């Protein structure tokens, strides 16, 4: 069991409330994943200013120094934002464990109680146009910050997963043969690397996730976000829960409705369960 929440804000008036809304959503899935939680925030200009790139690092080395950088420590995660292109910033932090990079997204991971971690990440204060969070109940690998979702392996991309992939080792071998490097033994990372490779090849989220459905065997509800997209997909059996809600002001998804109950205008939202093996993608 794990919990997933995601929120895309269409209405700029809501952007200052992103963190508060996301925290209420996270509170609705804490029971589904009490051992660790990860968060991604898109478009918070205090965390990643305009013209900057940001990288999120786990256990950043104490001697890390990037000229002109804004460094924020949040538990196990350190966010380094600097007025450099993403590739140059990544080169400047070479050797550190990177768990997120881009010009929009900042990623936070850690172990412990989800709402304690939300305070560590200063989530309630976050602003921006999109965010997601994952609460983890580890079943097949250790409770570590590395094993925490989201998996952010392409620029401004995030993937969160509830479930388990059965054939991840085979797909990992294919990706490794194609030159893709991995950070962990986690099955969800294989999904994230697969999607990132497809997006890098020019596919959109809809096409990449339909390809994932064809190749991956196992249980999954996935939420995948990027700088220009928000997408949900479930496996053919669809035993991992998901609810989507949409209003003119926002699109949200969560493992359970109770994570959506506090959103503004929820009473008038269109609410539905995503069907098996159908990709629900919002791209702009």
């Amino acid at each position, binding site marked *: 069991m794990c919990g997933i929440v995601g929120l895309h804000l269409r209405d700029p008036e809501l952007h200052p409330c992103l963190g508060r809304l996301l925290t209420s959503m996270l509170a609705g899935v804490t029971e589904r994943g009490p051992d660790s939680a990860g968060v991604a925030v898109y478009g918070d200009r205090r965390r990643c200013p305009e013209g900057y790139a940001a990288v999120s690092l786990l256990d950043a080395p104490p001697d890390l120094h990037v000229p002109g950088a804004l460094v924020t420590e949040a538990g196990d995660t350190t966010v380094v934002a600097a007025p450099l292109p993403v590739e140059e910033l990544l080169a400047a932090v070479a050797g550190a464990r990177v768990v997120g990079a881009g010009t929009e997204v900042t990623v936070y991971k850690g172990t412990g109680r989800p709402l304690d971690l939300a305070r560590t990440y200063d989530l309630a204060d976050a602003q921006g146009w999109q965010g997601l969070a994952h609460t983890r109940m580890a079943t097949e690998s250790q409770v570590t910050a590395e094993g925490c979702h989201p998996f952010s392996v392409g620029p401004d991309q995030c993937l969160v997963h509830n479930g388990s992939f059965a054939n991840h080792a085979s797909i990992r071998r294919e990706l490794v043969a194609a030159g893709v490097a991995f950070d962990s033994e986690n099955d969800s990372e294989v999904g994230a690397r697969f999607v990132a490779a497809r997006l890098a090849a020019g596919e959109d989220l809809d096409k990449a996730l339909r390809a994932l459905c064809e190749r991956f065997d196992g249980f999954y509800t996935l939420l995948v976000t990027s700088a220009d997209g928000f997408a949900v997909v479930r496996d053919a059996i669809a035993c991992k829960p998901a609810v989507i809600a949409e209003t003119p002001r926002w699109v949200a998804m969560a493992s359970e409705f*109770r994570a959506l*109950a506090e959103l503004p205008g929820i009473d008038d939202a269109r*609410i*539905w369960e995503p069907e098996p093996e159908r990709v629900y993608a919002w791209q702009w």
Partner: protein
Amino acid sequence: MIDLARTPLRALNRELHAPAADAYEVLNPRGAHAVAAGLCHAVAVEIRGHVGYYCAGMNQLARVTVHGNAGVGVAENMMSGLVRVRGDASQSAGATAHGGLLVVEGSASMRCGISLKGADVVVGGDIGAMSAFMAQAGRIVVCGDAAEALGDSIYEARVYVRGKVASLGADCVEKEVRDEHRAEVAALLAAAGFEHDPRDFRRYGSARRLYHFTRGNTY
């Protein structure tokens, strides 16, 4: 009236298990799990809002109405009484229910009536994939469409669908609709409060090729 924004869920369920009143109104369920579960008295419970998992599970005698959507397993293992969902129901609505009537005015998601053991389920909209899986007894009436693999490995439950069936599961077949079946559909529609012509429904059930051991199954 019990407001779940102020009253703990367990206090609500304790009151409903030993009711001092005949009728209750529950406010602000906000997706909470197990609202009005395990009731065994003939009380009426009106829930204003969306509920989470297992609402009205194990229900006996009570009449529970959800004025909103219901999460996974609404009325699971119901023994008797009436559970009505004014909105949509999530997966496994009415799972393993032995008796009583579950009405979903909207649509029900996947695995509706899974392992049904004798209850009746009437759905105003569509039902999701793998519905009526291994359903043993009882009736399911669907006013809309049924998604893939309807009635896979079904035993003796009877399924009536007014709209399209995307595909039938293993050992589930369409069957002749006789007068007794039309009467059965008419009675269930009336009980649920839906106005459709019973002649518009097709009947599905077990071909009984799967669950009997025959000489063909010997090794």
